């Protein structure tokens, strides 16, 4: 398959981006400032992220659309208000996570934001449950820009009046340059911010404005350190088809009503896990020293029994220490439990830590 590029590819190039192949796209991993500075400027001012590689999947239909979607998504879509969003998943028959996603109710149906690497398969999986009269479209004419950081609201409000009134995980239509655009108050960094769905033809103009307000471009490198500090999962690393939401410590994202009534893929298994707990569970991990426990690092108990593995690990610039997430046997999952991490054949001490590592500041 040919490598794909977002509408901003040349813009990134001019900003001095270093590119890496990611989910079939050439994406900026970092710009001139480097990962740590990009991370810090997002936390202290604001940064923008081109996340146009993610799928913007629109669905339209009558009330039967909800019935169809709820077979694969364990959210309470009947009670999701227009312009409100939920974090949820697509589940397979074993309750494994096919993808994690944000679903927003629109006037005519739903918009689902899908991970780039999964989007083609996701649409296949969702389509199995759709009826002939349900319309769907993966809209590749739209870019998606995340604006994140404490100054985001002040900066975006000047350009698009009204966005400051949005509460976390809600959105609305706004007008910009004579076009409609959709803005949600959301993100994946642990900061206040927005995600802006905008046509590929207008996106450069929006970025010009952000840059003129000293909003820095942020690459995938800092996106990873930011989301990990915020305790958020990265699909393909912390989540996959063999992991279910209970193991992933994401049972909060299954709607209460759906936990009781079920009717979605893998419910039998999930119901059982909800009642009895899972064998392993996702936890935060803090190495004691400076050593970085990266993905696939083996985790041992103090008695040297292998008890789990790391799924994401890096240096957290705002925590100013290494941070990691991984799966351990549930009996070792209590916060404060001492563990050992095997890095380059040597065992280093560490502790099970609370998530997030970095406290959020969402506007509720």
């Amino acid at each position: 398959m040919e490598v794909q590029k977002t509408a901003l590819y040349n813009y990134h190039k001019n900003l001095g981006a270093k590119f890496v192949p990611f989910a079939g796209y050439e994406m900026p991993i970092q710009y001139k400032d480097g990962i740590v500075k990009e991370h810090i400027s997002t936390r202290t001012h604001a940064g923008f992220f081109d996340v146009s590689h993610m799928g913007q999947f629109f669905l339209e239909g009558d009330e039967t659309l909800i019935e169809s979607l709820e077979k694969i998504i364990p959210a309470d879509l009947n009670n999701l208000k227009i312009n409100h969003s939920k974090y949820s998943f697509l589940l397979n028959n074993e309750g494994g996570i096919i993808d994690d996603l944000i679903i927003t109710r629109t006037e005519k149906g739903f918009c689902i934001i899908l991970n780039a690497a999964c989007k083609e398969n996701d649409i296949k999986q969702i389509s199995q449950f759709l009826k002939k009269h349900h319309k769907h479209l993966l809209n590749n004419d739209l870019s998606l820009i995340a604006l994140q950081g404490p100054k985001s609201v002040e900066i975006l409000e000047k350009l698009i009046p009204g966005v400051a009134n949005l509460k976390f995980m809600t959105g609305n239509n706004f007008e910009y340059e004579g076009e409609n655009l959709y803005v949600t108050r959301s993100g994946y960094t642990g900061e206040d911010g927005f995600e802006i769905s905008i046509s590929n033809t207008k996106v450069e103009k929006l970025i010009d404005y952000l840059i003129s307000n000293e909003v820095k471009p942020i690459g995938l490198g800092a996106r990873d350190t930011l989301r990990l500090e915020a305790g958020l999962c990265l699909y393909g690393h912390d989540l996959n088809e063999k992991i279910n939401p209970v193991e992933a410590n994401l049972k909060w994202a299954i709607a209460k009503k759906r936990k009781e009534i079920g009717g979605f893929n893998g419910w039998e298994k999930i119901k059982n896990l909800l009642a009895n707990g899972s064998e392993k569970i996702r936890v935060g991990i803090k190495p004691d020293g400076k050593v970085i426990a990266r993905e696939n690092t083996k985790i041992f108990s103090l008695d040297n029994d292998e008890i789990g593995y790391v799924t994401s690990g890096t240096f957290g610039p705002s925590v100013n220490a290494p941070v990691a997430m991984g799966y351990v046997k549930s009996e070792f999952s209590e916060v404060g439990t001492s563990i050992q991490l095997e890095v380059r054949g040597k065992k280093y001490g560490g502790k099970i830590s609370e998530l997030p590592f970095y406290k959020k500041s969402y506007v509720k």
Partner: protein
Amino acid sequence: MSEKKFSKKHEWVSLDGDVATVGITKHATEMLGDIVFVEVPDAGKALEKEGQAAVVESTKAASDVYSPISGEITEGNKAIADDPGSVNTDPEGASWFFKLKIKDKGEYDSLMSKDEYDKFCKENPS
């Protein structure tokens, strides 16, 4: 102190009598990005030329540091293990990695000069 010599794996070496000081080059730090972890060898460790000697990790990935010269470690620079970010600011000065007592000065002589190394980096962009 002798002039600095350079290896293809982006280490530098300077020589004071039979004690060599080894670090990573500015070019290497630019390729690595923000350095967040360093592990240096303990005194007494014997190293072969091109043997794995130290570890350097950036926010992106972990890399091995090799010794461009054989000998016995006399000192690892604990200051950079405590403050890994200092390797980005002064890689070819205060942020050296380790010192070792060398056996064969010929190994040092065979390394690249500054001009040769600069040319090598230009011809082998990462």
